[in-house]
């Protein structure tokens, strides 16, 4: 039986229909009213809504009594029923990292815009419209869609001059507008960032970003792959339509931003897109099922070139998709390598892009690279921690020691609402230094900041930063896992390549978290090796910068092909040393002398432990 549900959010009121008895989370997602970070499996507790239903046992377990009292419920545990009314709390807007460190390079866009005088066909010379176009702009051949060819007769007859879009002498478009712009898009799992560049003046005109609309299908790549395969036959079509719709919307937004500056609203002449392998699969409508489970096989990792219409992007431009390295080291990392001038590095370097999966690339300074991807989990992005939040206004982004304890700053100087990744690392560093956090990760107090450490409801130790922002013992355990994953990835690549930490001349950090990270805190928390503290280089939006270079740098395509060919992907899940290193790195670096059992064991020793531990000691006795 279908029932009608009344939904209110900060934009208005909606009446939606749903089958009685089904969880309303999925219905709300279908209407793009609610994001389900866990994909609707009922595990993340983020599908908060206000309603007056009788709370279920699961809701009572997951929500504080005060929250239940205020009417908060979880959409995954609320079933559609007759005359259900609910409201959805407003969600934070996305702030996208737009700055990037750039170096100068030889500028030569993929597409040339060439002005030409239109010659008219005559009764004596009955050449076709296509022939006429080729002659008019002295091109050798053409690649035009049927739709473009259909528009040719009126174009040639209603204009005296035109502009041809040429790709290595091949006509791939024509227009009356002289605006020559690149739309560069980086499809991240969390955010979609785009820039528009004037290819005549070589200036980036506008930058814009949004939260990825695919968030409604789950916060992480795996939940989305799950939706694309398990969410019915049209799962992949839904996800593809979502990203295409979003790219179209972002494109229109950027164009209207140009109009607002007094520029003519014109279609971009070239579109370049990068993103992780799953995002590119979704955009292309490729089945992503086999990326989501071992042995992690993508459909393709090659670069792709097509007409916008083939991807249902509403434009006449040619679209270039960047190639990737593996299922979990995608085109965004290739773009970041290009932005970091990886191919010009004469000394060993490491590039890290922190995210739910942290991708790490080590270059030996002789043009060979090794890459890995390590599951850091979402805690550096603010998710899953008690008071974690994304780097948005109100997030505490730095915490530092002062004479009488500590102090902090927040993004946009707003009232503190939570902790973002950089502050989490600052916090760990601060507590280790004050002696309140031991190397094993126990928040034991007894140090200089013990006044700020208390016990929470279930006896769990809490470090209070403000009256309602804190870091709990459980949070610290999550951070230990994330930190260990990243650091063990770095150590594994160093060991594989036989390069010592002190030989690394540059440690490039890509992405928002890397941008805000305090190098000293990163070292104190053990996220990066101490030898690299002074060689940290922040790249900012490296993937965005890289995708622009892919479309505008002379030889960028061959550089990228070379980087891809010279990169060895190291699969960590089957790497014998990684698991030992991962466990080894769960402890924080020692400061001074510490109890013996908390000291990180030497690597060799740890290698023995799993064997010893996991062989069935008791089994042999019995």
């Amino acid at each position, binding site marked *: 039986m279908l029932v009608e549900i009344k939904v209110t959010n900060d934009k208005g009121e909606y009446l939606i229909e749903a089958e009685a008895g089904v969880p309303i989370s999925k219905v709300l997602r279908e209407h793009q009213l609610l994001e389900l970070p866990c994909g609707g499996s009922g595990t993340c507790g983020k599908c908060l809504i206000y309603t007056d239903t009788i709370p279920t046992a699961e809701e009572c377990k997951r929500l504080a009594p005060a929250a239940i009292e205020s009417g908060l419920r979880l959409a995954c545990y609320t079933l559609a029923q007759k005359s259900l009314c609910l409201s959805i709390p407003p969600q934070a807007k996305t702030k996208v990292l737009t700055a990037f460190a750039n170096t100068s390079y030889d500028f030569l866009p993929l597409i040339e815009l060439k002005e030409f005088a239109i010659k008219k066909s005559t009764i004596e010379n009955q050449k076709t419209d296509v022939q006429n176009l080729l002659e008019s702009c002295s091109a050798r051949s053409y690649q035009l869609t049927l739709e473009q060819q259909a528009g040719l007769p009126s174009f040639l007859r209603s204009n005296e001059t035109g502009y041809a879009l040429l790709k290595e002498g091949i006509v791939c478009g024509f227009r009356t507008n002289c605006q020559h712009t690149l739309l560069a898009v980086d499809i991240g799992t969390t955010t979609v960032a785009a820039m528009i560049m004037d290819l005549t003046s070589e200036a980036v005109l506008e930058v814009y970003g949004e939260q990825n609309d695919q968030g409604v299908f789950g916060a992480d790549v795996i939940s989305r792959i799950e939706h694309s395969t398990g969410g019915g036959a049209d799962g992949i079509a839904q996800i593809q339509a979502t990203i295409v719709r979003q790219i179209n919307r972002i494109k229109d937004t950027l164009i209207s931003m140009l109009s607002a500056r007094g520029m003519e609203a014109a279609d971009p002449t070239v579109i370049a897109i990068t993103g992780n392998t799953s995002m590119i699969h979704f955009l292309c409508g490729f089945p992503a099922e086999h990326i989501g489970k071992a042995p992690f096989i993508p459909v393709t990792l090659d670069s792709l070139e097509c007409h916008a219409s083939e991807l249902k992007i509403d434009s006449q431009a040619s679209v270039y998709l960047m190639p990737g390295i593996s299922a979990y080291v995608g085109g965004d990392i290739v773009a970041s390598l290009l932005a970091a001038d990886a191919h010009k590095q004469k000394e060993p370097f490491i590039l890290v892009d922190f995210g739910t999966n942290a991708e790490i690339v080590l270059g030996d300074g002789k043009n060979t690279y090794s890459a890995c991807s390590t599951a850091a989990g979402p805690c550096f992005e603010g998710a899953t921690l008690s008071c974690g939040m994304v780097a948005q206004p109100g997030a505490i982004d730095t915490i530092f020691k002062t004479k009488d304890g500590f102090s902090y700053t927040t993004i946009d100087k707003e009232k503190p609402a939570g902790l973002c990744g950089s502050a989490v690392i600052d916090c760990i560093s601060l507590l280790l230094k004050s002696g309140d956090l031991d190397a*094993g990760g126990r928040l034991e107090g007894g140090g200089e900041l013990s006044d700020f450490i208390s016990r929470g409801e279930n006896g769990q130790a809490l470090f209070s930063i403000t009256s309602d922002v804190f870091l709990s013992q459980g949070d610290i355990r999550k951070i230990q896992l994330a930190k260990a994953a990243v650091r063990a990835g770095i150590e594994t690549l160093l060991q594989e390549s036989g390069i010592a930490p002190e030989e690394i001349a540059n440690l490039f950090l890509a992405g928002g978290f890397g941008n805000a990270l305090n190098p000293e805190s990163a070292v104190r928390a053990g996220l990066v090796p101490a030898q690299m503290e002074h060689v940290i280089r922040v790249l900012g939006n490296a993937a965005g910068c890289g995708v622009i270079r892919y479309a505008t740098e002379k030889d960028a395509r061959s550089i990228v092909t070379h980087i891809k060919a010279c990169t060895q992907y190291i699969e960590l*899940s089957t790497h014998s040393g990684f698991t030992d290193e*991962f466990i080894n790195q769960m402890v924080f670096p020692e400061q001074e002398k510490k109890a013996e059992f908390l000291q990180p064991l030497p690597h060799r020793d740890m290698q023995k432990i799993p064997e*010893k531990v996991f062989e069935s000691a008791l089994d042999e006795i019995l």
Partner: protein
Amino acid sequence: MSVLTEMSEMLQKGKSAETAALVQKALDEGMTPQDVLDNGLMPGMDVIGERFKNNDIFIPEVLIAARAMGAGTDVLRPLLSASDAADRGTVVIGTIKDDLHDIGKNLVAMMMESKGLKVINLGNNVPPEKYIEAAIEHNADIIACAALLTTTMVHMKDVVSLLAESPLAGKAKIMVGGAPVNQAYCDAIGADGYAPDATMAAEKALELMKAA
């Protein structure tokens, strides 16, 4: 301090050599190997399990303590005959097909061992039929499946249905666990038990066996 209390404390501190020496000392004082295991080593590991559950200690300390436990049982092994040890039950454990995550599952295996259960660890990427084959071979009481990905946890359902068709149907129980798994999922696929962490998984296993 009694030798057993001291043994438990050394085990908790992860001191392998001291733990082994105290096991020897207890034997020299005339205690039975079973007594040393049940009242010295296992209580030490129980404390570790409890502290781990409460976030008071973390995976590395658990591993180091388990290593000390191993050093202690090494001393006891030649002295314990099969009949000496109380057979508390057998668990077949593994990470499900297409999933390569090992650490959490190994922690569960370790905690179960320290509760005196016999554990057959099948490793990772275990096809559903392999759980059943191993369970039949070892006459297991419990089959424990781990999954760390939403894309792989779906295979757990197949273990449940294969068990129902096997000679162990109605006898062996199925436990499920891992980051994306919860009680609701456990119920939905018809598994017998779920636990959110390694310590509770070991407790759950004992509970399921008692209920059987």
